[in-house]
């Protein structure tokens, strides 16, 4: 009996260990595969072609700039919309809302996180895009702005719930001390609570942006998918094509092993590097904070 138990112990221990290592292994394997399929693009397509302004694979034009630009416009638009609203919502839930409103708002924000992006995209096509076309008098509502709005909706829950936790972690006593000094409640939030929680709030924004970078379905459905280099603020109201949407739309029809196929993987590598960079920045902010805390404690 005890023999069996120690055997079981060992088995479970190894099972846990293998699943832990396999997570790392998968990431490495995916990255290596991306490299293997993507890097040949550099030998098959001249660099001048990759950096050109036209994406037209049927004629072997593989300019990545319109796609990169399209992604940037949509991401920046989403960030500009989602970050202020997200932080304000978090401040409202954590600092201002009466308990009953908090009880209602928190789950609603979390439900928003659970809406599949296809459903959001559907909503975008049927309601948002026609509305934008009429309201702004555009030739089509399927624009970067529509994509930004939907991406803002997908990143809001992350920004709200992570910043809210950061605000909660500011000790209540700070608030009392501030109020007791004849500082108004709004000044306390703006000048004390938010600065004290800034690393957490920054992490929240980074995670939110990270989510918008990788989002595919919603932008594929509503941005119109025209590979045009964005120039100026007006490009927000024109169709764009993002990197994620390009991969999703074209990967199914491309001939395996062709130059086009390899370029699509190159786009995948670029996306991977962008999200990696954002996550590293977020992690380093958190790490710096921890180091400082340890210095003070020691």
């Amino acid at each position, binding site marked *: 009996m005890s023999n069996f138990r120690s055997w079981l112990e060992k088995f479970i221990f190894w099972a846990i260990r293998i699943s832990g290592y396999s997570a790392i292994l998968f990431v490495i394997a995916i990255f290596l595969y991306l490299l293997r399929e993507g890097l040949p693009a550099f030998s098959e397509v001249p660099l001048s072609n990759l950096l050109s302004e036209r994406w037209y694979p049927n004629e072997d034009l593989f300019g990545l700039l319109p796609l990169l630009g399209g992604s940037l416009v949509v991401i920046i638009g989403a960030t500009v919309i989602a970050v202020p609203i997200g932080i304000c919502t978090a401040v409202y839930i954590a600092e201002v809302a009466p308990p009953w409103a908090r009880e209602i708002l928190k789950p609603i924000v979390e439900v928003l996180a659970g809406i599949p992006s296809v459903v959001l995209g559907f909503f975008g096509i049927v309601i948002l895009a026609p509305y934008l076309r009429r309201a702004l008098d555009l030739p089509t509502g399927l624009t970067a702005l529509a994509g930004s709005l939907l991406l803002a909706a997908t990143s809001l829950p992350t920004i709200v719930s992570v910043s809210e936790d950061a605000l909660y972690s500011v000790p209540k006593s700070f608030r009392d001390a501030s*109020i007791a000094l004849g500082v108004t409640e709004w000044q306390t939030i703006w000048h004390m609570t938010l600065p004290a929680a800034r690393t957490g709030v920054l992490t929240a924004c980074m995670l939110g942006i990270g989510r918008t970078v990788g989002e595919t379905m919603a932008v594929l459905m509503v941005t119109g998918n025209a590979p045009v280099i964005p120039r100026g603020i007006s490009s927000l109201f024109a169709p764009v094509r993002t990197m994620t949407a390009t991969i999703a739309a074209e990967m199914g029809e491309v001939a395996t092993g062709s130059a086009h196929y390899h370029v699509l993987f190159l786009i995948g590598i670029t996306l991977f590097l962008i999200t990696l960079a954002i996550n590293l920045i977020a992690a380093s902010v958190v790490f710096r904070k921890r180091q400082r805390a340890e210095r003070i404690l020691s």
Partner: protein
Amino acid sequence: MVKVVNKILIQNFSLNYSDGTESLHEITLQIPANAIMVFFGPAGGGKSSLLRAINRLNDLADVISISGEILLADENGNYLNIYDKKVDVIELRRRVGMVFARPIVLPLTIRGNLTYPLELKGEKNKDILMTSVERSLRQAALWDEVKDRLDTSATALSGGQQQRLCLARSLMLEPEVILLDEPTSGLDPISTSKVEATLQDLKQRYTIVLVPQSIQQAARMADYAAFFLQGELIEFAPENALFINPKDGRTKDYVEGRFG
């Protein structure tokens, strides 16, 4: 200028929390100007509640009912009922400062902590800010220890220094009254005696209300003392009378250590 004898008058003041735990019943008390008034008694007696009522910090807590009056005198001897609807609570809290049991330094530099209340009051003049920083640090007997590192993090100070920094921060607004809720509870004996000496100096200029950490501290510090038990004011007298010859049996028992 009229000589104000009683800085604060508390009249038939009652307070109840919504969960019914702590409360105050019909407190009537005069707090003399330029002296140290000590509120003492066992835990849960209502000392802190009364202290927090004087600068309306209780507004943030779950208070369901308040009755009676708390009157605060200005320098001309005119009394203001601080629970009057027309009172500007922010202005009141600038006149009545508060120091808490644990030193609460904000995550800013030493200078940033001090200028915080004054800057948010609207003071932008750097010279005035710096003059106030030096004045209040000197008043709190902290200037010599921190004058060379005003721009370093305040969280790196020792506990005693942090508490004197909090005191200095309250003094930045030049309040008329300073409320202290067990200000030395987390401090070592040396820091405690520094804070106590500082308070003895400060009473020349300010009216001080202190909830002491122990009955010994109450006896050391009090010019006047009030004994609270279960939300009621049992006895109120100049220091000697209360500690040497208490009138009420319950005060006597507590002072002599028969319960506590």
